[in-house]
């Protein structure tokens, strides 16, 4: 346990040392920080944006912004956490911007349907029931991606950071620029929406598996 603690502290120390080297003008030292933290940032960005291209853009932009703001980084804090937050902030801004652009392009169609196509409740109700045992994993995966896409950028961010990344409510609130109470409600609303959208398909898959096991 002590060894693990020492090892964690040593990793943090080395990040702090690398930050100092970078600030002293050793630009290539920043490479170590990029190589250490890229995979973590990619995982967060991929879950927030839902695709590889946007995730890669988010990671690059986060490190560029991190470099530009490195002088603002308090060396006693954790560089990984700091750049992670920059990535989360940029990812949510980027997704919001993309949604606004899509809304502008799709405005005429949405006006006709009253915006119903964005509500996961409606898209589930509109689905024709699929025959049992035909709900393959790939189809469920598609439904899950659609359900995540149907969340608002704040809901998706809150869900990703809380459920998959295990972040504290206060940390998520910082990214959403909201308070803890409102952030909790955003997490709860995201779970509710995902449940509404996915429960019929998850139940079908479980039933199909049970039938398969019996047969």
């Amino acid at each position, binding site marked *: 346990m002590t060894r693990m603690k020492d090892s964690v502290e040593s990793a943090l120390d080395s990040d702090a040392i690398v930050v100092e080297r970078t600030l002293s003008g050793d630009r290539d030292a*920043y490479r170590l920080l990029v190589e250490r933290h890229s995979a973590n940032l990619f995982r967060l960005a991929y879950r927030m944006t839902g695709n590889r291209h946007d*995730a890669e853009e988010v990671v690059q932009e986060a490190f560029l912004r991190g*470099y530009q703001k490195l002088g603002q980084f308090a060396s006693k804090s954790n560089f990984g956490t700091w750049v992670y937050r920059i990535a989360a902030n940029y990812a949510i801004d980027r997704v919001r911007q993309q949604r606004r652009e899509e809304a502008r392009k799709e405005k005429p169609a949405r006006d006709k349907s009253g915006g119903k196509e964005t509500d996961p409740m409606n898209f589930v109700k509109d689905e024709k029931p699929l025959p049992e045992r035909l709900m393959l994993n790939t189809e469920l995966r598609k439904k899950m991606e659609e359900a995540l896409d149907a969340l608002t950028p704040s809901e998706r961010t809150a869900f990703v950071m809380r*459920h998959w990344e295990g972040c504290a*409510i206060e940390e998520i609130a910082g990214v959403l620029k909201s308070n803890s109470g409102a952030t909790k409600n955003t997490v709860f609303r995201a779970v509710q929406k995902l449940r509404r959208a*996915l429960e019929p398909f*998850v139940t079908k898959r*479980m039933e199909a598996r049970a039938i398969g096991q019996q047969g």
Partner: protein
Amino acid sequence: MRHLTENELIGYREGEHAEREEITVHLAGCEICSKELERIEAVLAALDALPVEDPGEDYGRRVWQQIAPRLGEKPGRSSWLRSLPAD
């Protein structure tokens, strides 16, 4: 105790419900609420199986190659701002 609302069950699952012990006791004796919690758990468990693409072992190196030409000679250093959080 009345049956739990969906919000209460989600809050319990997230570890964000103040009356946690009371709810635990209720769930132990209430099949309706425990089944409801199971259904929420099943959806979240299915979401856990949603894969994240693997960026590859040399991903960090590739990120560096992409951003290095865009970095200035020196990062911004403004000592009076060092205690501010990232925005």
